[in-house]
């Protein structure tokens, strides 16, 4: 169940850093300039820019050039893809465990009937 591993890997790597998650969180409420992003995080602009580059490379954000300012904004698709992937795996495990539960029950029922009733002979209650 692998889908474009490289892209997913880039998304997860970008998300592994708390500062980058904070940046994404901020951008989720609307576009922002580098200085607007830097201020509440008490970080220097170059430090924020470094993180923005990682996010940009992973395709999670874009930066636009407009006359007076260069806002950063969020790109939703890769996050959605990563989320779908996680959801797919959660489903995988929940359903596998349910199937395993059924299978173990079936196996044990089979074992019991084999022990109680060897070689398919009918068990007599009065024995």
């Amino acid at each position: 169940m692998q889908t474009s591993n490289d892209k997913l890997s880039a998304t997860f790597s970008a998300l592994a850093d708390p500062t980058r998650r904070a940046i994404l969180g901020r951008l989720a409420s609307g576009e922002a300039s580098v200085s607007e992003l830097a201020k509440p995080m008490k970080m220097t602009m170059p430090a924020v820019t470094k993180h923005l580059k990682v996010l940009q490379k992973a395709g999670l954000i874009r930066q636009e050039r407009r006359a007076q300012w260069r806002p950063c904004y969020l790109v939703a698709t890769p996050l959605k893809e990563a989320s779908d992937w996680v959801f797919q795996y959660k489903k995988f495990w929940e359903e596998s465990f349910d199937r395993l539960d059924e299978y173990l029950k079936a196996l044990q029922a089979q074992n019991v009937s084999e022990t109680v009733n060897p070689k398919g002979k009918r068990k007599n209650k009065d024995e």
Partner: protein
Amino acid sequence: MSNAAVSATETREISNEKIFDAPRELVWNAWTDPEHIKQWWGPIGFTTTTKHFDFQPGGQWLHTMHGPDGTDYPNEITYKVIDEPSRIEYEHGDCPLFYTTVIFEDLGGKTKLSMKMLFNSTEDRDDTARRYGAIEGLEQTLGRLTEYLAIQGK
């Protein structure tokens, strides 16, 4: 959008836990014999064909999962740690994104099975906190992104 929300400490890796009404030995066998595995591996509607099964540290399980819509998904699992009858660790994929740990706990006739998938990239391999952070971060970010995603479509 406070930093506090983003740095919440709750760990939310992909994990699952279930108690099975079966002895641990049987549950262990169900994970370690391809004849057993194919009976339950994968989501409902999937079947599994094993091409190669070498159950030992460094050994591989090569298998194809067949989806209900006919799509085939080739898979490669490399076992890293095998500690019978209580623990299996493996990597999934030729470019492993995730590292999975499965714990078999004996509850006296019943068995508790716990699995965890941790984010696993080359640069973060030795840093558990960062591995955990990835999915935690994804879910936190997405939690607040739901509306945004709805607007963007797709």
